[in-house]
């Protein structure tokens, strides 16, 4: 472990740590803070002293505690982890504990993370410094966009046409059967008509005579006859008319009852 020998205990550069403290909100988490601390070693990150880094970090957290600054939990978790790592790096490996993680490996892992983060930051800077569209280079301002003239060609064959026509004709042949309701001469109509025309029937008059003109054809006369007959019965009941029939199925006659 190259770090161990020159690792000195909490350095006197706490002044620098304190200046960082003012900035605690400026760090994006413990790794960001660790990277900043590691850079203070002013060495290539590949040779960073993890032991020294752990000390700086712990000192930083202690100072923050003294100032009663609120420290996010992940900073404390990292502090505990670094304290453990530090003790493991300083103590000789315990041969009885085979499960204990290799401290050197842990340190190597942390160093790698720091290097990787720094590498990504450097890459980001290089990327952002490239000639960028809209900042350094510009696209055509007045493009002449390709106009796609979409046309729909409708497809229909003569057979489609003939089938369609045949379909229309077939449909016509199967038009639903409408059963026409026969015309009915309503009894109300018969009553009204009798009421109006009764004045003319001071003498016996056949029922037929009271049928409306347009209801006398054979197809309609039955309905008109039935309604007029029913209406006359109604009037007879009320004592308005008298009815007589000389023989079964004979002519029915009616006359206004004398007042």
């Amino acid at each position, binding site marked *: 472990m190259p770090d161990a020998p020159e690792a000195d205990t909490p350095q006197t550069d706490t002044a620098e740590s304190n200046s960082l403290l003012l900035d605690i909100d400026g760090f994006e988490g413990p790794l960001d803070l660790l990277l900043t601390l590691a850079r203070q070693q002013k060495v290539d990150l590949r040779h960073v002293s993890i032991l020294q880094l752990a000390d700086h970090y712990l000192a930083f957290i202690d100072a923050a505690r003294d100032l009663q600054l609120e420290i996010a939990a992940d900073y404390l978790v990292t502090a505990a982890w670094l304290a453990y790592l530090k003790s493991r790096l300083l103590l000789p490996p315990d041969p009885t504990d085979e499960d204990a993680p290799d401290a050197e490996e842990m340190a190597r892992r942390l160093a790698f993370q720091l290097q990787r983060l720094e590498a990504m930051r450097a890459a980001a800077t290089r990327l952002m410094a490239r000639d960028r569209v809209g900042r350094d280079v*510009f*696209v*055509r*301002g*007045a493009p*002449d*966009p*390709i*106009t*796609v*003239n*979409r*046309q*729909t*060609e*409708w*497809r*229909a*064959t*003569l057979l*489609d*046409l*003939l*089938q*369609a*026509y*045949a*379909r*229309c*004709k*077939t*449909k*016509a*042949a*199967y*038009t639903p059967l409408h059963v026409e309701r026969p015309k009915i001469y309503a009894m109300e109509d018969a009553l009204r008509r009798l009421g109006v025309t009764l004045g003319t029937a001071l003498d016996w008059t056949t029922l037929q005579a009271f049928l409306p003109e347009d209801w006398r054809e054979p197809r309609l006369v039955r309905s008109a006859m039935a309604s007029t007959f029913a209406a006359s019965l109604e009037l007879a009941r009320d004592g308005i008319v008298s009815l007589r029939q000389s023989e079964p199925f004979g002519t029915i006659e009616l006359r206004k009852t004398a007042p």
Partner: protein
Amino acid sequence: MSTEESLQFAPPTLDEQERMVEAMLFSSTEPLSAEAMEKRMPTGSNAAEVLRRLERHYEGRGVALIRVAGKWAFRTASDLGFLLRSEETATKKLSRAAVETLSIIAYHQPVTRAEIEEVRGVAVSRGTLDLLLDMEWIRLGRRRESPGRPVTFVTTEGFLDHFGLDSTRDLPGLDELKAAGLLDAQPKGGFAVRDAPEEDEDDDTPEDDQADLF
């Protein structure tokens, strides 16, 4: 940007100025005047002069430097416009409503919308007729000399072309449709189909022929 700084002292070369004008015109959303460009260029530049150089440089190329309303702009060479247009033709099957409507117009022309609806038994949408008119398969015929003077529809030359017909007389009659197995049921009595719509029905009294049809 060292270019920019050095230009503070001596005017850029004509080549440099030409590059600047070229870049400005390329990236501008609208035509630029020589004055407007010169204002942005280092002092001592002469935009008008390099515009003439640039115009010559683009002569005969795929892009031309042109003057519009006293300003300058790059435009695609006019003979290459075809590269920027593309025709995309999609073939779509004509809807059932459209084919039926078309067939009724073909067989009964000239025919009014109301008459088409009577044959189809359903309303004919404006869109269907518009589509057929748009395709130039049907056109408006003479107005019917009946109340409301409704317009009639007739088929066009384009229609005959598309369906490979010499005339509408070539449309098979109902008996032929039946013989071809296209028509199963008996046509409704009294609804005669004219085997051959007359060619010039628009000119003579079409109503007479139609009278017994509708």
